[in-house]
Structure formats: structure tokens, C-alpha cells
């Protein structure tokens, strides 16, 4: 039988880490763009539109990501749309992250005192200028901690994509364990790798928050 060296284990886990990082980036960027758009629509849209977006947010917050992955992956092919695991996971993580991020950011915008909007509009600033120059700079600071907190959740949640065929870090650990019979060592290493991804994020958020104290 083939013997797994320490290097084999490390190499395979690191290769799998690319998927964890890649999927996380897709979720941040896709979710951030869609989520940002949703916030603006929630601020400016009609009542019906706002209700629809709220329904969207509640739907994605109220169902497990695992099920969303199943539904998108198998659901799309049921409608005759050919999907790869990557497409399905990208769609799912983007929608999932956008729902949470739009909720977090809406909360931060709403935490800004109404007087700030009133002062800005009394100075004849347009809605866009009020948002861009007065509200968002202040909301940004309030949003950092919850946003990064959610990002950390997403990094860990990418493990769920293993159910539709991704060999990311958790799944890779499982496979290696099946071959080496060293569960504690392997899973311990995987856990440390997650920590190595998430901790710098939290650290950076604290530094950014400090920098934006003004």
C-alpha cells in the first residue's frame, strides 16, 4: 500500500485550500456586489420592491446553505440547464452572502442618525451625494465588525460545497484520513488551516476599525 508522507498530506491539503479560498472570494465579491446593489434598492425602491427584497433576504437567511446548494445544483439540471459544481456553488454562495451582507449594511446605514440625512439634504446635496459623502463613510465603520464576522462564517461555510463534489479543505481532510487512519492529526491540521485563514481577517478588521475611528 502507498504510504502517505507528511509532505503528501500537506500538499493535498494546500491544494484543497485553493478551493476554500477561491470559493470564499467568490462569495465575498459576488455577495458584496449584489448585496450593495440590494442596499441601494432598499433605500430608494418602491414599497413593493422593498418587500420583495426583504422576502429574498428572509428566504436565504431562513434556509440552510446545504439545502440551497442541493436545490441549485440539482434544481438547475432539472430545468435542463447544464451546471458544473463551480457554477452552482458560485450562484449559491453569492446569493447567500448577498442576503446577509445587504441586511448587515442596511442595518449600518439605518444606524446613522436621521439628522445626518436632514442636514445633508438641507445643504442641497442630492440623494447620491448624501449617501456617498455623508452616510456611507459613517456607516462603513459601523459595518466593518459584522461584515468581517460574516466573512469568517463564509470561509467556514464553504466546507458545505463538498456535498456537490468540491474537494475543499474539509473534504480533502476526510479523504486523507480514510487513507492514513490519523483522524486527529489530519482534522487538527485542517482546523489550524481554517484558523490561519480566518484569524488574519479578524485582525485586519480590528485594525481597519481603529483606522476609521474618525
Amino acid at each position, binding site marked *: 500500500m502507498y504510504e502517505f508522507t507528511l509532505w503528501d498530506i500537506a500538499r493535498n491539503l494546500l491544494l484543497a485550500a485553493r478551493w476554500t479560498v477561491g470559493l470564499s472570494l467568490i462569495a465575498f465579491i459576488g455577495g458584496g456586489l449584489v448585496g450593495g446593489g440590494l442596499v441601494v434598492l432598499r433605500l430608494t425602491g418602491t414599497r413593493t420592491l422593498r418587500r420583495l427584497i426583504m422576502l429574498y433576504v428572509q428566504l436565504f437567511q431562513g434556509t440552510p446553505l446545504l439545502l440551497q446548494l442541493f436545490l441549485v445544483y440539482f434544481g438547475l439540471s432539472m430545468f435542463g440547464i447544464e451546471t458544473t459544481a463551480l457554477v452552482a456553488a458560485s450562484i449559491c454562495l453569492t446569493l447567500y452572502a448577498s442576503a446577509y451582507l445587504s441586511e448587515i449594511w442596511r442595518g449600518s446605514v439605518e444606524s446613522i*442618525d436621521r439628522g445626518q440625512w*436632514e442636514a445633508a*439634504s*438641507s*445643504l*442641497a446635496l*442630492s*440623494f447620491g*451625494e448624501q449617501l456617498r459623502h455623508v452616510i456611507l463613510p*459613517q456607516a462603513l465603520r459601523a459595518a466593518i465588525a459584522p461584515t468581517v464576522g460574516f466573512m469568517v462564517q463564509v470561509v467556514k461555510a464553504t466546507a458545505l460545497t463538498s456535498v456537490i463534489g468540491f474537494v475543499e479543505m474539509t473534504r480533502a481532510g476526510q479523504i486523507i484520513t480514510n487513507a492514513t487512519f490519523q483522524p486527529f492529526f489530519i482534522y487538527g491540521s485542517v482546523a489550524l488551516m481554517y484558523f490561519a485563514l480566518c484569524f488574519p481577517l479578524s485582525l485586519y478588521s480590528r485594525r481597519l476599525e481603529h483606522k476609521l475611528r474618525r
Partner: protein
Amino acid sequence: MTPSPHNDIPAAFALVDIRGLRKRFGDNEVLKGVDLQIARKEVVCIIGKSGSGKSTLLRCLNGLEPLQEGSVSVDGQPIRPDNRQALRELRQNVGMIFQGFNLFPHLTAGQNVMLAPRLVQKTSGADAERHARKLLARVGLAERFDYYPDQLSGGQQQRVAIARSLAMNPQVLLCDEITSALDPELVGEVLQVVEGLAAEGMTLIMVTHEMAFARRVSDRVIFMHQGQVHESGPPQALFDNPQTIELRRFLSLDH
């Protein structure tokens, strides 16, 4: 309502012309038909109990509150809340100062003053800064250009807010209880700045609880009661010889 000669400014001379103004919040009618004409360079103080509609009236004058019935026009231009461009032009003419200062906390005093001229009037950076320094000097805060709002006292913050609204060269300044959030010892410095503006000929409409100030500085005092102009006239007449029982009661309460 007591007739007063000041109430009959011909519309052509009125800078602010309010006619039949009504405003409801749900079932609660806050303004029940207000008629008021304010002339250029006039200083008008609005007094009255809380809930009498003073602040709402003020907020209708720059479109912060949409009105339901009646009309408001400033410098001959009627306010149309549905027209954003018209509203922006109106707000360049009508400055507002708030009870809670509402300075932008992420910007320095200077940046607070420069923001609107740079964005709305597209003033160049150097011009905006020169103008801002002049305005801050005018409110006695030349040295505080680079200070953030949380490094300033309440009185200083309110003076920055005054400079900020003056930066747009408004024709009218609305002051909504601008000293009510201040410690008593800081009220004087703010009122002094406002008095200076009045002396320079700025049109001022102030909601205030400072009766001594209203008596000293205003050309006309408006007493509002239950959403209407209940009594109005020159300060001496109003304070020394109130005609209605409601105003007498109001004046004897705590002032």
C-alpha cells in the same frame, strides 16, 4: 387671531410666502392653515408650546416635510416636493440650523463647511477653503478649521453648523431651537453670532425658547398655538401686552 400691520405685507415684497398651509402626520393635524408672509431682512421668532407646530412649520419651508395643503414660496418660487431639482435649488436659498447641530462627525470643521459648496456649487478646492476659513473666522472659530466635531464644545459645534449653512449664501436662515441642546453657559456665544447675522441683514426665521433674545433681536414675534398663528406682532407689543389668554398663559408659565 389678532390682526397686526405686519401680517399684511404685499406678496410681492414677501421673501417667504406661506398660504393656507396644512400638514398632517397620520390622523394628527399639526398645521391647521398657516398664513404668514416674511419680508426680506426680517427677523422673525416663533414661540409656542411644544406640539404647537413651530418646528414642523420651519421644516416645511425647506421641504424637509412635504406639505399637504396650501402653498409655500420662497423668493417667488413655489415649493414643489415632487420636483427634486427644484427642491435642491430651493435649499441653496434656504439654510437650516438644527437643535442637535448635525455636523458630519467624520469631517473636520473646515470640511463640514466646504462640502456643500464643492459638491453642489462645484466651487474649486482653493476657493472653497478660502471661503470656509472666512466663514469660520466670522463665527469666531478661525483656529478650529482642522478640528473634528467631537473635539469641539456644543457651542462651537453649533457655530460651525451656522458657518456651514452660510457657505451656500442662503437668503433665509431657518433656526430650529438652535440653543436648546446647549449648556446654559454656551447659549450666549451662539446667540451672539445669530444677532450679528441679523444686524448684517440676514433674513432669519427662528423657533426659540430664548424669550429675552426674541424680544431684543426680532422684528416680529409669532405665537403659535394648536397648529395656527395665534397672535403675532412686534416683540414689545406681544410680550408686554398679550391679547389672547393662551399667550398670556404661555408667557406666565416659565418665562
